């Protein structure tokens, strides 16, 4: 029961669409059948791309470890820290909630607030997903979007440092782990 609830929370759309299909099959059965067929067709067209994307996700997961990230970002500051954070953000995997403990560990080790913001910003860049985006939207769209997202880390970081104050990061220093 609890597992079903957890599953449903992550897969809310499955229920929403099931109900929508149920409703449409009663009111307009022909439309429901046609919709399902069209959906299946789209899925079939993308199946190969999806498989490659998840193989790349798997490769990232085993080759880019938490230690790898902490080793590179231990006590970074300055522009180099931001750039490194933004770069590493693109290869971090898993849900954002799972990344928070890692970020806190980085703060404890002396990383600057902006570095954390940069990582969270470029976490939105999913390097393994780029093949899928390329396949669907083409080179120009993909490069522009990913480029803008990457650049936005360097806008978000200083803005956030102004809003939260430069000493914000200090309160986390040495809180967990530490040297």
């Amino acid at each position, binding site marked *: 029961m609890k597992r079903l609830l957890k599953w449903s929370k992550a897969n809310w759309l499955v229920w929403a669409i099931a109900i929508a299909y149920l409703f449409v099959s009663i009111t307009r059965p022909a439309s429901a059948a046609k919709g399902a067929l069209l959906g299946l067709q789209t899925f079939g067209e993308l199946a190969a791309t999806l498989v490659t*994307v998840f193989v790349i996700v*798997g490769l990232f997961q085993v080759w880019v470890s938490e230690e790898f990230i902490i080793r590179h970002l231990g006590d970074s500051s300055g522009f180099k820290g931001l750039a490194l954070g933004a770069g590493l953000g693109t290869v971090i995997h898993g849900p954002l909630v799972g990344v928070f403990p890692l970020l806190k560990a980085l703060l404890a080790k002396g990383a600057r607030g902006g570095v954390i913001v940069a990582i969270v910003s470029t976490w939105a860049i999913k390097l393994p997903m780029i093949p899928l985006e*390329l396949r669907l939207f083409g080179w120009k769209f993909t490069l*522009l*979007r990913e480029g803008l997202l990457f650049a936005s880390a360097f806008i978000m970081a200083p803005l956030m440092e102004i*809003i939260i104050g430069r000493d914000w990061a200090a309160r986390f220093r040495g809180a967990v782990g530490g040297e």
Partner: protein
Amino acid sequence: MTGTDLALLGVTAALVAFSTLRDRAKTKKALRVALKQFLNVLPFFVAVFAMIGLFEVLLTPDQIQGWLGAGQGILAPIYAAIVGGLATGPPAAVFPLGQYLLAQHASVAAVGTLLIAWVAVGTVTLPAEIQFFGARFAVSRWVLALTLSVVLGMVMGWVL
């Protein structure tokens, strides 16, 4: 299968081969992780494709253009930011939806915003973020990310 698909398969095969040469056990684990993750997100993907199919039969391109088309100006990316910012799901799932909307004459700004807000905003994770980093950090970041998704979407619409 398109040429892009074949190129992707080739690159992926090369990556797997390289990884196998470096470390056999790790590569095996990577493929297991890939399969597990794929099966995990499969239900959501099936739902997305089913939704696209349903949209295709129930909505006309004119309706989508009416809500998310270029004629809506800045409203289109704002709607997209709200939908993308509130909804949650696997990052990859938003791409097919975006492509469908684009094909139905939604504006580039709206689709760009949707794709960015989907991953960059994170309303569902906001409580956790507050707990970890404090309300000031989390809420400011949420507001900035939402705003930025619209701005970046507009820039994309302007460039493309």
